[in-house]
């Protein structure tokens, strides 16, 4: 039975809008799933069409992660919420050293949301999933009344497989390790802020949103004993480093001059009074590893398109206070604290 005769008429992807019936579980829901979601995301596992999707276990050690995406605006230079939702969870899986394989996708749509926009978003998800080598194998769609949502929220959860001998975790940083970042900080957050209605500045910066599993695969192929991997998303580099310092019970000492920041990001932050160390990223990672293996790792990272600007930005030290400190480019010292309050709302 094809879509054409299962549902009288076709979903109006040009001018149609989400209405409450699309979330009712009834025929309108089924039509939306078939003519929009499955159209883009089709794969043999998703096609099982059951409440749960069955798949053969990919290995002995698995990893699971989830992220909800509530970004505003939904479309931004370099991506949209659809591609972001795939990258967000793929990256969180990859940060355990895992090979991400399967994603679920949960959509919360606001009544009145244009089907054309939803179509674009789901197409981006499909593209991002293919590029990252993952499959979206199960999903869910809910609709909330106008004024009870914000266009579309997307949750993704994912499963990946990891080599059982690997031990990559936020608690493994130790004095003598160095801190590497895979590229310039703050691109994603600045790209999003630039498209905010009430901020409105012009920049050539695009979001760095990307799947990092390829880069990580290359890193794992080296001899290096990677202690920690984490993507500095919400809260930026500063907050993520504080998390790691806290989790491992260490201090971190950064060198401001070593932190790669694009001039346009730097300028945008000056303009808005923000600190780029607190601006979100979605296609960058922090790697902590023993100092003696860092150069080798750095060389491999720089071979990968997503790691070409990789740099060592600091070192792990002993510190009973678990401070992240920084030698400023100016020559002084300061704490780089957790983000307090909110930097700017809703960047992932």
């Amino acid at each position, binding site marked *: 039975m094809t879509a054409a005769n299962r549902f009288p008429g076709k979903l109006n992807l040009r001018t149609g809008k989400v209405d409450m019936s699309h979330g009712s579980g009834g025929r309108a829901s089924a039509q939306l799933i078939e003519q929009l979601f499955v159209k883009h995301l089709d794969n043999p596992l998703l096609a099982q069409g059951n409440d749960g999707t069955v798949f053969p276990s990919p290995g002995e050690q698995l990893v699971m992660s989830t992220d909800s995406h509530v970004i505003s605006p939904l479309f931004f230079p370099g991506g949209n919420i659809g591609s972001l939702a795939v990258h967000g969870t793929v990256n969180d899986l990859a940060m355990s050293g895992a090979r991400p394989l399967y994603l679920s996708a949960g959509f919360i749509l606001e009544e009145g949301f244009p089907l054309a926009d939803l179509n674009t978003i789901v197409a981006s998800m499909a593209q991002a999933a293919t590029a990252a080598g993952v499959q979206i194998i199960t999903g869910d769609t809910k609709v909330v009344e106008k004024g009870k949502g914000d266009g579309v929220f997307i949750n993704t959860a994912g499963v990946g497989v990891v080599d059982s001998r690997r031990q990559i975790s936020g608690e493994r940083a130790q004095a003598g390790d160095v801190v590497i970042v895979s590229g310039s900080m703050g691109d994603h957050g600045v790209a999003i802020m630039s498209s905010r209605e009430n901020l409105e*500045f*012009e920049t050539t910066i695009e979001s760095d949103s990307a799947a990092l599993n390829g880069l990580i695969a290359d890193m794992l192929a080296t001899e290096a004993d990677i202690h920690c991997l984490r993507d500095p998303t919400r809260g930026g580099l500063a907050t993520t480093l504080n998390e790691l310092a806290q989790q491992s019970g260490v201090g971190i000492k950064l060198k401001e*001059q070593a932190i790669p920041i694009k*001039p*346009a990001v730097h*300028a945008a932050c000056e*303009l808005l009074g923000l600190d780029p160390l607190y601006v979100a990223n979605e296609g960058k990672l922090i790697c902590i590893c023993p100092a003696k293996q860092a150069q080798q790792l750095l060389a491999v990272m720089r071979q990968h398109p997503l790691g070409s600007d990789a740099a060592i930005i600091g070192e792990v030290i002993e510190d009973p206070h678990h401070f992240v400190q920084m030698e400023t*480019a100016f020559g002084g010292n300061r704490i780089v604290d957790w983000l307090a309050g909110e930097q700017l709302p809703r960047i992932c």
Partner: protein
Amino acid sequence: MCLAIPAEVISIDRDTDNASVAVGEVKKTVSLALVEDVNPGDFVLIHVGYALEKLDPEEAEKTLAIFAEMDAEMAPETTTVEGDRA
């Protein structure tokens, strides 16, 4: 709160009395309601969406020269002026 930064005037819309200004690679529209005799190429100090005042490049040079000045009792040292980020 009193955050204000220097920006270069790129173009001026005399009708709206707004200017497009550049901070490094970033552009933004600000009001010129508070300043006079501004022209493209000038630098202005911008604050909450307004140009507050023009910058005086000569005075800026002088200040930089003072920064670099040697005190009688000090040995000479490198003081070339350059951006701290390439």
